[in-house]
């Protein structure tokens, strides 16, 4: 089985109210020295067979068409060894 991880994050120039809420909460819990928090999404996609360039390209297409909105988000795709 091939596993790909897609991380989707709000672009830097887009306001991230959820990240800001977390940023505001952490110091109240006593955590100090935090300069920024951004909140994103992580997808784990399992495919039949082994990781290869073709599957990587396919996962990138999934990210572009559905998982991320390129207007406000960017994504990264990485292959991962499935735990077992």
């Amino acid at each position, binding site marked *: 089985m091939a596993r790909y991880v897609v991380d989707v994050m709000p672009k830097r120039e*887009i*306001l991230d*109210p*959820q990240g*800001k809420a977390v940023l505001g909460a952490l110091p109240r819990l006593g955590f100090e020295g935090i300069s920024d928090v951004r909140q994103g999404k992580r997808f784990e996609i399992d495919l039949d067979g082994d990781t290869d360039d073709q599957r990587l390209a396919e996962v990138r297409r999934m990210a572009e068409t559905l998982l991320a909105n390129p*207007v*406000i988000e960017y994504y990264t795709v990485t292959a991962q060894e499935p735990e077992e």
Partner: protein
Amino acid sequence: MKVGVVTFPGSLDDADAARAVRLAGGEAVALWHGEPDLKGVDAVVLPGGFSYGDYLRCGAISRFAPVMTEVVAAAGRGMPVLGICNGFQILCESHLLPGALTRNDHQRFVCRDQRVRIENTRTPWTSSYADNAEVTIVLKNGEGGYVADESTLERLEGEGRVVARYLDVNPNGSLHDIAGISNERGNVVGVMPHPEHAVEDLTGAGTDGLAFFTGLVALGVVTG
């Protein structure tokens, strides 16, 4: 004038939108998200709500509903399409309109009688408003912050495609106080406030929203 109103799983305001069409003298036709069939309508409304539970992103999954293939094709032929709230989000996700709607900057759901200025009366949905009419239309959203890159905003402003702009307060952090925009041709319009909730004195804040529907019906547009 037959106006289709699409129901997605999680749509809330489809009944109100159909009612607004009827009050305006049009014939409301129920369209189903799962059927790639516009049933011969002359215009389409994508109503508000939380289609597909707003999973992934608002409108992201609805965009791929079978009916949307037909809506996108018909919009390309010039059919009037109005997206209200969640419908606006779906139009942006479908790339029928530029930009995106993001979580309100103050992180809270907003529900208020919102004053807006109708700045573009060249669209089939706003043609019966006076230029720069200032009206009150109900607003209710959690993810209504309009964002687009600087060049897109410049184009929208330069081409007069900002259909409605918030007055008094910016309720959700929208850039340039944008409450609604149109596509280049003007037939596709997305608005965050809900004109279909402002059509009767009995409920809501007056009847300022009715002109979206009466204006359309008066045009009697018949397109593909």
